[in-house]
């Protein structure tokens, strides 16, 4: 049974990663046809870094991803604090409502945001409302639930006495938050930020509906590349993008593992303390 499990796990992993591997191999292939291996080369990467069209688009994607994930993290953390302070029933309702956008089909979110922006545009009599700002708003919108989802558990894991102790020792509520609470929930904030960064970097569906002529991101532009066969430098670009996201995910897992270890150490120490006190 154990060997079966192992084989099955490997099969699933292979199934998941084969497309990426094929893409990565094709990016090193010295020819345009991904099915025929014509020798190892790095020219595709060289061409990519000399390309004047793709690199600015990639930069655009990064700009949107960084700004939207930072803003979403700030807003989401605030929202999580508010939700944490609510009564249990209210909390459940609000969490339910914030989770809906996660399961909502992206295309519905995209179309409704586009309609909303167009509507606001006509109200404000601005005919060119779609652009960088609308793209940013849309990305913040779909990033928010991820941040809330990763920060709220940290808040409930936190010992509420810590904050009260800080208040007792003379902190204002704001100081108590920045000196105590934020350190406790930092792992949640960081993983929320990284998560929303990756979501935003590769988002296509929602961006497709809300982007404007002034600002285009990479996935949207690549989707329209239908008039000519894909050039191998695009494989190189995707490989790099995949590696970047992989890096972020590994980082996130490492952080989480470290946090878990720290917590278990703290719990053991704390438990020991309590036991000692009980014995006294």
């Amino acid at each position: 049974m154990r060997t079966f499990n192992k084989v099955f796990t490997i099969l699933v992993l292979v199934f998941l990663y084969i497309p990426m591997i094929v893409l990565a191999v094709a990016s090193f292939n010295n020819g345009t046809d991904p099915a025929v291996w014509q020798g190892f080369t790095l020219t595709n990467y060289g061409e990519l870094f000399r390309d004047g069209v793709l690199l600015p688009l990639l930069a655009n994607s990064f700009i949107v991803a960084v700004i939207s994930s930072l803003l979403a993290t700030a807003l989401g953390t605030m929202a999580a604090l508010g939700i944490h302070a609510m009564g249990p029933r209210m909390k459940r309702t609000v969490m339910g409502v914030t989770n809906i956008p996660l399961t909502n089909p992206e295309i519905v979110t995209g179309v409704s945001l586009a309609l909303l922006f167009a509507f606001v545009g006509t109200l404000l009599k601005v005919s060119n409302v779609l652009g960088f700002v609308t793209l940013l708003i849309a990305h913040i919108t779909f990033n928010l639930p991820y941040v809330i989802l990763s920060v709220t558990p940290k808040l409930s894991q936190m010992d509420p006495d810590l904050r009260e102790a800080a208040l007792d020792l003379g902190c204002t509520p704001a100081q108590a938050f920045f000196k105590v609470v934020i350190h406790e929930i930092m792992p949640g904030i960081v993983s929320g930020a990284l998560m929303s960064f990756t979501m935003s970097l590769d988002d296509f569906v929602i961006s497709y509906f809300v982007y404007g002529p002034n600002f285009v991101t990479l996935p949207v532009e690549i989707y329209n590349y239908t008039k000519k066969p894909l050039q191998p430098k695009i494989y190189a670009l995707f490989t790099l993008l995949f590696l970047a996201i992989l890096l972020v995910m590994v980082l996130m897992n490492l952080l989480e593992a470290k946090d878990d270890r720290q917590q278990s150490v703290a719990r053991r120490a704390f438990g020991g303390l309590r036991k000692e006190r009980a014995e006294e």
Partner: protein
Amino acid sequence: MKKLLSMLLCLLAVSAMFPVSAFAAGETINVYNWGQYISDGSDGSIDVNAEFTKRTGIKVNYMTYDSNESMYTKLKTGGSTYDVIIPSDYMVARLISEGMLEKLDMENIPNYKYVDEAYKNQAYDPSNEYSVPYTWGTVGVIYNSKYVDVSDTGSWSLLWNKKYAGKILMFDNPRDAFAVAEEYLGIDVNTVNADDLRAVSYKLIEQKPLVQSYVMDQIYDKMEREEAWIAPYYAGDYLQMAAENPDLKFYLPKEGFNLFIDAMCIPKGCQNKKAAEEYINFLCDPEISGQNLDYLGYSTPISDAKQYMDPDTASSEVACPSKETLSGGSSFINLPSETSQQMDALWLQVKTQGGVDDYALWCMGAIFIAMAAYLTVRGVRRKRRIANRCKKWKPQAS
């Protein structure tokens, strides 16, 4: 913490600046075109938009779409305005009929005089009030001369030839696929007659057992690698395939063929009509048109542009067919919505008739049965285990 906050503030400031900088540089126009449908400076070609900005000082915001239909949706949704769009013939007709285009002021487009008469007064814009041709091309048959007998070529019948069963590719969109069969049967490509359309769909169903697959862009790989030998496709794309595999040949069928024109238009709500007309005029400049289309591989509607093109392309009968050849071509116009709905429904019938889709059904069935079997086996085993446990309990209890 303060560092983090100040960083955030910095980023906010940057983000606030960004859209401003986009508007700051004087005049701008928004151009909405097919993806990869303009020479962008790669492989030593001319960067058309940069050249335009250099000459006029007008900045170009360039946006792309993947099909006429998605461009139409974006226009209809609103929220953004465009100064120049480049739809295909039938979409131009549709936009005109829905009043979505501005009339062009030809005074501002003096280079229109270079456009050949053959591409003026087309059915989609009979009086040339709304559009200026950008590129055009033909749909013909691509075949591999290594495997296909030359005596079999010359007609659409090659696509129905049983000798080459399993080596034939076909368009994967209803309009182009129907046009192929319509031309073969001698029916007008813009017919609205329901019986004709049904007859065409029977012809396509008759062809289905011979077809290897219905494809669009995968045609490049399949033809270049000789997995398939025969396919109907656009002449411009054929030239790129032939560069990879010189055995590939192309002909325009004698029964008639589709001639498509992509044309530049100005949509209603445009912000800067003068600059938009300047842009259209710029693209009609023979020198620009020649270099641009040399890169794209499509044909230019401007004869004077040929001197700026690669001489091989300019003299090729595929890229620049003669007037006599072209007289056999007919262009699409917009079909009324009932006709296109009927066509979509018939196309669905063609695609779902037997064949591959059965496999999907069988697979689904197999998976379903396997799951059901697994669940029953597990249920039975669990019951047995519980029963066993109960047996063990009994003596202890007593």
